[in-house]
């Protein structure tokens, strides 16, 4: 089997980091996924609900092909993947090398709790005396120094916040599994020499450092220090610079001559900082400023210690780095207008409100105020707090807050059973994503969310009631005061902590506000080759955009790794087939972990063995201490090797943890892992209230029977376990890309660059699509460069076959093999076979008859204008007044969506005219300016340049009347409240984008379209470029309206998703797979309707229902609807489940 050898480092395990890591891992690369926090999930671990479903759904990102390589449960809880090494509490220390061949050093914060031993009983929390605010609940509730970083992780091991831990040792004493080791043994091997002439300094340093577990010696002078050094090896020396006799610098020089590897940190008063810097030039590691206290000194020493420890590890080789560091959020308390945040208890940030809504939040999800328990009945959201604010150097939009606020308002309303009034104060509602406008409209019309245009200038506090008074000025200029129970500040984005240092380390540029800067026409590539960006690191994005960008980043990384030769090499796998035991009667070894003496106390082992052995399938019952430890595990292996069972049942804790271990055990003892089962005994032991030291015989027998029943369920599963190898689906490793615009070309290139053949179909005579008429972007990049560059590569690529003047007529088939009929205008029809399909049929500017378009040369569309400017058919010098009308026929039914590019196009053209002639009058009639992200600054620039923006309402649309020589435009100016007339030389209409993907074509591939004719995603947030039918992907304008760069990102994402499949010659199914017992099947086809993955079809010739093994996800819906179990699910056979249920009821009759 071909396996890609090659490795990537993904920095940041938020949603985009997970996506990028999974994409790379599914393609076959090894991935190291690190996060500085102790949990995965990033910001999403704190957000329970996502629009448009107002629920979660993260698990939809889990691998669907070769899915047994990964965990398949709630992704918020955790992730295991064979190819992903997750390292939490870990930071990147250094990056050396070149693209395809980087050496990276990582630093992991020491974990004082061994996660493999922690069973999450929580006894330690009860005894911990330290209480601090809990960051998970944004400080709204408290936690102990030993705590769970998130409430839901699996396995959920406690960790110790070493910054606040008082090292009292209580937790260590109470821990029943010995998971906590406060005083790390290893630090004793780290010897530190403290050199200072002042006794008090020496002594206090020695005491502080010894408290941390280090071995410390002291010296009062340079010569004494040299004496120590000659007798004993030291890892670190702390040296005072100013000492009588031999000073610190001289000591440093002398010490370094003899011990060049010794790490030295200088200690200096402020006055001698320069000397300290000089010292660093001759080999000192760092310096410490005197005076210092333990709180600053100790973390610094520990960091130095960890760095030194980390550098002892060999550096990790990776081909590429994907930075998914996310963003942090604006702190309103630090702003110019705090809106009372930090002072009034009921002013919260959007993130804090998210926690208030959450069932794991400070109120367990009850909608009451934290300050006084008053139920929330009226809540205001204030938008753009820390965004779109030039005064605080935030001339950008944070892109997600509008939708975030609407979602919060809707969830809050639903929670309150409708008895909650929600008002959103906004400047522009930026509903620029697919389906966002309708979501907003529904919020307003169906759910009664109030949208108030305007910026709130202040929030006052009523001390008696705790209520908040929101003051704002409406359009008529009236001052309005309104009372709310709570005010939510929709806080904007800020660069993630440590972004600058990270950027410096990897030599990557940041934009003017400190966010990651990517190359023109790429959302992922930076100017530093081999370093790519995913997710919000380059600016805040919603989930679907983050996911798209993360997949695109995975693709960019993969290209680099591939180009460096790190792929398609043959991994020699010497895996021998497991011995066939299918003819043997079951001979089961039951290994019960007694968890130290915890379980031993609670049960009567002899009785248990007796009862278990009644079953003839049970060969041997063994009790082991702590199978979670290395010794325990080796003990288990020893027993297996001795008794040679053909099935193994392990009773222990945390079955999830064993998934990988079982595979390893199987390999070691030559037993198919499908024949090894783990059941959770600890849950029972923990939940039983039998904590007393001496148990009565009755109590022991009760526990015994509970244990028997749990082990019985495992035995039942094991007896019916099927060790047959899982089937796989043959994959034709070729792709079809429909549409030769920039998206289609980009995806074709991406696939071909990985060594797979691509057929590229274009209905026009030439490739290029909309780039054939587009000239430049708002940012000033010429589109010709990207077009020419891409065209050249596509046309020259040996693996891409271009079919221009061709149309797809029909297609059928399933992932792995599709048959598509293509009609060539000249040559007639031909059939292509391919394993995956990418739909990139594109889109065009919408036609219109509104605003008298077509009746006058002076009324044009934005596309007309772009062309006229380019081919000089517009006499620009003659123009004195231009009116641009936005949202023509858009954002209203039937085309109720934002086309996303029109506002920026209008700005691009407005700024172009203003640059040519600053005196020109330009009026932009708009509904909401959709200058999301960093394009906001062009909106500011346009206003500064004197472009007049007039907002219009759907109820009072502008009137356009062509007259002699000019066009009269009448519009209502809301601020003055009057109708204005503009005599324009040119009226430019922004009509938006309509897709060009024919419905029947999409359907013949098995894809569906949304009501606007765009590709319908399998899941708009989590699987944004996939179709529900596996093997079909979409990108570019056929997917959704977006600009060139964003289109390319979707193309790269689609290509990456396709590559996961193409990289397999045969795609293995999951172990849990649906099957059909044809002799029982009545062909009622209910299973076909029930299958959410389209994995079933009826073969009319065979008269059989067939299951596509690669598409089946083992959900069991088919087995559920099948009345006579003709449809079954491997691993969940009726007989097996009956046995399991029987066992679960054992002893309860």
């Amino acid at each position, binding site marked *: 089997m071909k396996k890609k050898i090659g490795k990537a480092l993904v920095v940041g395990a938020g949603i985009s980091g997970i996506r990028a890591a999974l994409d790379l891992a599914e393609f076959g690369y090894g991935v190291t996924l690190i996060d500085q926090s102790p949990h995965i999930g990033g910001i999403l671990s704190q957000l329970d609900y996502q629009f448009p479903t107002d629920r979660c759904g993260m698990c939809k990102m889990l691998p669907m092909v070769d899915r047994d390589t990964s965990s398949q449960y709630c992704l918020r809880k955790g992730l295991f993947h064979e190819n992903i090494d997750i390292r939490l509490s870990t930071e990147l220390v250094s990056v050396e090398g070149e693209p395809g061949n980087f050496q990276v050093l990582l630093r992991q914060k020491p974990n004082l709790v061994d996660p493999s031993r922690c069973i999450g009983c929580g006894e330690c929390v009860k005894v911990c005396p330290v209480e601090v605010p809990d960051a998970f609940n944004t400080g709204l509730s408290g936690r102990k120094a030993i705590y769970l970083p998130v409430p839901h992780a699996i396995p959920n091991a406690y960790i110790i916040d070493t910054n606040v831990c008082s090292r009292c040792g209580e937790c260590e004493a109470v821990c029943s599994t010995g998971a906590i080791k406060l005083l790390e043994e290893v630090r004793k091997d780290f010897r530190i020499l403290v050199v200072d002439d002042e006794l008090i300094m020496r002594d206090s340093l020695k005491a502080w450092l010894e408290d941390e577990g280090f071995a410390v010696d002291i010296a009062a002078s340079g010569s004494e220090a040299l004496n120590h050094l000659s007798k004993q090896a030291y890892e670190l020396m702390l040296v005072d610079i100013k000492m009588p006799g031999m000073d610190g610098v001289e000591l440093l020089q002398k010490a370094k001559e003899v011990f060049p590897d010794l790490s030295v940190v200088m200690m200096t008063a402020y006055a001698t900082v320069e000397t300290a810097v000089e010292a660093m030039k001759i080999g000192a590691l760092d310096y410490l400023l005197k005076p210092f206290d333990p709180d600053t000194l100790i973390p610094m020493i520990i960091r130095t210690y960890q760095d030194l420890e980390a550098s002892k590890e060999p550096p990790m080789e990776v081909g590429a780095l994907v930075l998914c560091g996310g963003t942090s959020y604006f702190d309103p308390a630090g702003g110019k207008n705090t809106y009372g945040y930090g002072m009034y208890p009921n002013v919260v940030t959007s993130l804090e409100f998210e926690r208030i809504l959450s069932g794991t939040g400070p109120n367990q999800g009850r909608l009451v105020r934290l300050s006084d328990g008053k139920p929330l009945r009226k809540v205001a959201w204030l938008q753009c707090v820390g965004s779109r604010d030039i005064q605080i150097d935030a001339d950008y939009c944070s892109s997600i807050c509008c939708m975030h606020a609407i979602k919060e308002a809707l969830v809050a309303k639903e929670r309150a059973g409708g008895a909650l009034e929600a008002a959103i104060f906004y400047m522009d509602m930026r509903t620029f994503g697919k389906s966002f406008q309708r979501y907003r409209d529904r919020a307003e019309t169906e759910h009664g969310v109030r949208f108030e245009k305007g910026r709130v200038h202040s929030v006052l506090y009523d001390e008696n009631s705790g209520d908040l008074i929101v003051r704002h000025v409406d359009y008529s200029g009236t001052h309005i005061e309104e009372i709310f129970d709570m005010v939510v500040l929709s806080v904007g984005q800020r660069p993630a902590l440590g972004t600058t240092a990270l950027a410096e380390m990897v030599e990557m540029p940041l934009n003017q506000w400190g966010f990651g800067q990517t190359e023109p026409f790429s959302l992922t590539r930076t100017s530093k080759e081999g370093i790519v960006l995913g997710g919000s690191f380059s600016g805040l994005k919603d989930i679907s955009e983050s996911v798209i960008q993360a997949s695109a980043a995975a693709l960019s990384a993969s290209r680099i790794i591939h180009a460096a030769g790190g792929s398609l090499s043959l991994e020699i796998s010497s895996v021998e087939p497991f011995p066939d035991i299918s003819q043997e009667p079951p001979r089961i070894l039951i290994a019960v972990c007694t968890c130290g003496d915890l379980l031993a106390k609670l049960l009567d082992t002899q009785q248990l063995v007796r009862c278990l052995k009644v079953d003839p399938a049970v060969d041997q019952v063994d009790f082991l201490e702590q199978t979670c430890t290395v010794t325990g595990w080796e003990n288990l292996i020893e027993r297996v090797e001795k008794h040679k069972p053909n099935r193994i049942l392990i009773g222990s804790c945390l079955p999830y943890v064993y998934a990988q271990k079982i595979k390893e055990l199987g390999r070691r003892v030559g037993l198919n892992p499908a024949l090894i089962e783990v059941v959770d005994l600890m849950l029972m032991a923990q939940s039983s209230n039998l904590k007393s030291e001496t148990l009565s015989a009755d109590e022991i027998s009760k526990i015994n029977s509970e244990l028997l029943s749990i082990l019985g369920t495992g035995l039942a599963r094991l007896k019916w376990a099927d060790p047959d190898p899982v089937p796989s689906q043959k994959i034709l490793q070729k792709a079809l890309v429909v549409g030769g615009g920039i998206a289609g070309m980009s995806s074709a290139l991406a696939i071909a660059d990985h060594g797979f053949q691509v057929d590229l179909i274009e209905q026009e005579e030439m490739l290029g699509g909309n780039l054939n008429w587009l000239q430049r972007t708002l940012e000033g990049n010429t589109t010709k460069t990207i077009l020419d560059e891409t065209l050249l590569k596509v046309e020259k690529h040996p693996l891409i076959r271009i079919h221009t003047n061709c149309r797809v007529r029909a297609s059928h088939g399933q992932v792995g093999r599709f048959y598509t009929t293509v009609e060539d205008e000249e040559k007639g029809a031909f059939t292509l076979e391919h394993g995956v399909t990418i739909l990139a049929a594109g889109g065009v500017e919408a036609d219109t008859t509104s605003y008298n378009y077509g009746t006058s040369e002076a009324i044009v569309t934005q596309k007309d204008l772009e062309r006229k400017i380019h081919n000089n058919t517009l006499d620009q010098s003659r123009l004195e007044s231009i009116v641009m009308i936005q949202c023509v026929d858009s954002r209203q039914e039937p085309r109720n969506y934002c086309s996303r590019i029109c506002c920026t196009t209008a700005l691009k053209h407005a700024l172009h005219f203003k640059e040519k002639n600053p005196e020109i009058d330009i009026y932009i009639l708009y509904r909401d300016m959709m200058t999301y992200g960093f394009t906001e600054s062009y909106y500011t620039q346009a206003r500064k340049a004197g472009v007049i923006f007039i907002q219009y309402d759907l109820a009072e649309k502008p009137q356009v009347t062509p007259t002699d020589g000019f066009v009269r435009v009448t519009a209502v100016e809301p601020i003055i409240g009057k109708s204005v007339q503009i005599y324009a030389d040119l009226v430019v209409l922004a009509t938006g984008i309509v897709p060009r993907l024919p419905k029947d074509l999409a359907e013949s591939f098995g894809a569906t379209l949304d009501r606007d004719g765009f590709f319908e995603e399998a899941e708009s947030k989590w699987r944004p470029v996939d179709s529900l039918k596996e093997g079909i992907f979409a990108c570019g304008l056929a997917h959704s309206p977006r600009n060139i760069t964003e289109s390319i990102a979707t193309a790269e994402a689609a290509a990456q998703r396709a590559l996961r499949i193409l990289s397999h010659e045969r795609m293995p199914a999951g172990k849990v797979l649906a099957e059909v017992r044809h002799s029982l099947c*009545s*062909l009622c086809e*209910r299973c076909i309707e029930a299958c959410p993955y389209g994995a079933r079809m009826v073969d009319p010739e065979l008269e059989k229902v067939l299951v596509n093994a690669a598409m089946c996800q083992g959900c069991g819906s088919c087995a559920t609807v099948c*009345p006579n*179990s003709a449809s079954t699910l491997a691993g969940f056979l*009726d*007989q097996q489940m009956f046995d399991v249920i*029987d066992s679960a009821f054992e002893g309860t009759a």
Partner: protein
Amino acid sequence: MKTAKINVKDGDLLTTLRDFYRSILQLEDISAILVPQHLPAKNVVMPTLVTDPKQLNGADPLAPVFPLNGAKIVSRLTRKPMGAKIAVVLRPCEIRAFVELVKLKQGRTEEVVLVGIDCLGAFKNGDYIQINGKKEAAFTSRFYKDALSGKKLTFEGFDLAPACRACENPVPNGADILIGLFGVDTDNQLLIQARTPKGETLYDKLDLYDTEEPTERSAAVKSLVTERSAYRDKMFAETTEATNSLEKLNTYFAECVNCYNCRVACPVCYCKECVFVTDVFNHDPVQYLRWANRKGVIKMPTDTVFYHMTRIAHMSTSCVGCGQCTNACPNDIPVMELFRTVSYHTQKAFEYEAGRSIEDDLPLSVFREDELAEVVGIGKAA
């Protein structure tokens, strides 16, 4: 809806109907007609597939018996393309069962014209044999005359089958061609109605004269439905009372010998083989011992109530209440009564009515987020 009347000669409905069927069979594109006939052997009434118009003399669609639900037969005839079109004469409950089978892909409507006839009800199979022990040729005439004149339908001490007495669907609304009796002056006329485009095509070829539906018809049907609904509701109440605990349910099925006849007779139990006769329920011998060990005693055969509950879970949404299950029970367990009682509630819960329309999706293949909020738990709270 095109409606016509055909004249009844000498008040003889059967002869008129036979002539009508013959006229259908003689149409060029109808290759055969399925119709219940008195078979010479033992004078029983069975569905027959007739291609020769002369072989329709024994047709007896009004005999108060249907030994099996004809939907199963129509399913066999239409499961795959036949290459010819046939007409089938069915009772309303048979049509409704067929509609369910079509949705379950066990039959096709493309090549079949459904001819439905207002249903006067039937006796239990066993009762009919008792009543008609004399093989009285004119019994059908005696029966339909009594039925249509509103007389009490007790013969030899036997009442109509409970399923029929509780049936609120006496009119074959799902038929392509309806033959109406209720509210019609049946001494002189029969009502013919084309209820679908397909029915209309056939109707047009039959040389009929358009007329209006008699005004009395809807009132007659309504009054019959009211009477039957009252019986039905009483039956529901009694059955619920008899089965509202596990103990009572066990008692209800105490005589059941797991013969599975009820599921064989059931028109909508469409499985090729019931799961209860497959290896799934062929437990390991040691399993029986284990169960017995747990309680000290178990009834054999096992899985009796489990079987009935499973059948209810699988098929109650498609149950048309024809009563063939009760007919089939060797030990006279009132199976229909329980099935109908449960079905009434399950079908109501899904706003579904078995056999109402081919257009309605089977409830279990449709997921609506807002349905059964109290069960699913994700409906709109507000």
